[in-house]
């Protein structure tokens, strides 16, 4: 009886916190399908989604390669500063994205360390794609490394040693042995990185300048529509974002099989 009660409580809690907001957004959107469609088909909205996908398409591979290299360094190598690196990987999880955005602002702004150099070479960094990509890479950095590190530890390095004695060099061993044995961790990390990149708001909001049709991502577009009291538009864009996230999450749960090997 008490177990049943506990279960109901947990379900009710999840329903209130997670499901209800999603349901209400869906419901509101379908109240006014015409307005929702108008908002979605507006050129600025389409541009915003394209921009979000472009940033994600760049941030995810960069973080995947970085995450795998980092994990390999932390698990397989000994070097000074290893503990520090391990700790720093988690920094983006601990730091508010707004702070990340502001620090990029300081670093790359007209007076910043890198900003002076960029200005001299006429490179537009802030309020443009480069800053938005760097901000997104920063906030979605830990996921691949955090997934891969424990798996790499668990797998151990005997298979890699066996591969070496069988005549495989470093690269061959990585592609044929190491990568296949951590592949599910990598895929899982990629999915989390993707979800995080798609949904990034705070850091990008600070560094993008939010120029409609230029540096406005999908999440920024939601906020913009909301502020202009175009609620059906805000809801509709939110729904597409939510659906993308759901697809990613479903992919994550179905893709990870019970391995026979």
């Amino acid at each position: 009886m008490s177990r049943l009660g506990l279960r109901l409580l947990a379900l009710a809690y999840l329903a209130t916190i997670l499901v209800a907001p999603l349901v209400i957004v869906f419901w509101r959107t379908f109240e006014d399908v015409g307005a929702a469609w108008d908002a979605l088909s507006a050129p600025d909205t389409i541009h915003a989604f394209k921009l979000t996908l472009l940033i994600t398409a760049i941030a995810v591979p960069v973080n995947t390669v970085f995450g795998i290299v980092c994990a390999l360094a932390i698990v397989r190598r000994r070097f000074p500063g290893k503990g520090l690196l391990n700790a720093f990987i988690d920094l983006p999880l601990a730091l508010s994205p707004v702070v990340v955005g502001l620090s990029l602002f300081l670093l790359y702004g007209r007076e910043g360390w890198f900003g002076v150099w960029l200005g001299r070479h006429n490179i537009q960094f802030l309020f443009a794609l480069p800053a938005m990509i760097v901000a997104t890479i920063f906030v979605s950095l830990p996921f691949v490394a955090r997934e891969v590190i424990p798996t790499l530890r668990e797998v151990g390095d005997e298979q890699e040693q066996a591969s070496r004695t069988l005549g495989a060099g470093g690269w061959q061993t990585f592609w044929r042995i190491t990568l296949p044995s951590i592949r599910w961790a990598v895929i899982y990390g990629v999915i989390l990185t993707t979800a995080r990149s798609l949904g990034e708001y705070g850091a990008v909001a600070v560094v993008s300048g939010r120029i409609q049709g230029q540096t406005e991502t999908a999440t920024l577009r939601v906020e913009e529509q909301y502020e202009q009291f175009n609620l059906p538009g805000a809801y509709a864009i939110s729904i597409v974002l939510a659906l993308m996230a759901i697809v990613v999450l479903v992919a994550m749960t179905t893709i990870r099989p019970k391995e026979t090997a």
Partner: protein
Amino acid sequence: MSIVVRSVSKRFGDFVAVDDVSLEVEGGSLTALLGPSGSGKSTLLRIIAGLEWPDSGEILLSERDATALAPQKRNVGFVFQHYAAFKHMTVRDNVAFGLKVRRRPKNEIRERVDELLNLVQLHGFGDRYPAQLSGGQRQRMSLARALAPEPQVLLLDEPFGALDARVRAELRDWLIRLHDVVHVTTVFVTHDQEEAMEVADQIAVLNHGRLEQVGPPRELYDEPASKFVMTFVGDANVIDGALVRPHDVELLTEPDEAAMEAMIVRVTILGRDAKVELHDDGGAEIVALLTRERFEELDLWRGQTVWVRPQRERVFTT
């Protein structure tokens, strides 16, 4: 293909794992590195394979200096205690691995893999994954995998250590037969002296990173070079500060000048032998191994007082 180890040393921090070891392994021989845990036997094997670097000394493979060669350039086969099976590959792909990285033609690979799967009696298991095999089968698979690229040297690190006694004995016999068919120079590491005696034609005994003695099993048993070898290879009694093998302890039922009085505390019949355990007047334990005939002839019983006369005593200064 011979192996020469020349004054090799290796430390891990303060721990001296291998201490100035020199050893020659003849081409085609089957050599055991025998010693207790921490004696440096596995480290020495890994140095030969290139999986560890020596701090000093040289490794020669087929008379060529291999000290600085990466493991993938040494052409050695290595078998790990815990198999190191490639879990994401089928048995067939595991065995084919060394041939694939050498980019051999596909049909040649297929033929060689079939041949090896037959040799290790795993035909019909080619499409399984390592997780679907028993421990013994997995170890046979890794043996086939190690043999596939036709290595000049086969190195096995406690290959039967993770298996139960029956499978262990089976694989042991099988390794001897395999070595008769595939005359590859083989070195295996074990802490089990019986295993070393049974399988190897040459044994190198290691203790605390130092080489104590090298020789054929019989020589090690009959002419041990040190106290450690005498006690580690076979059993030994300590009588008056000298070491005596149990079958060199003669028992007399009558008093004798050169004999010491002792009381029988336990008698065990071991097939054709009888093991008699005794206590001398100081309470020290002595074990005597007698043939059944001798045992019946003497008509010994528990609690009886007898006289112990050591036959071949050995005194070691080290």
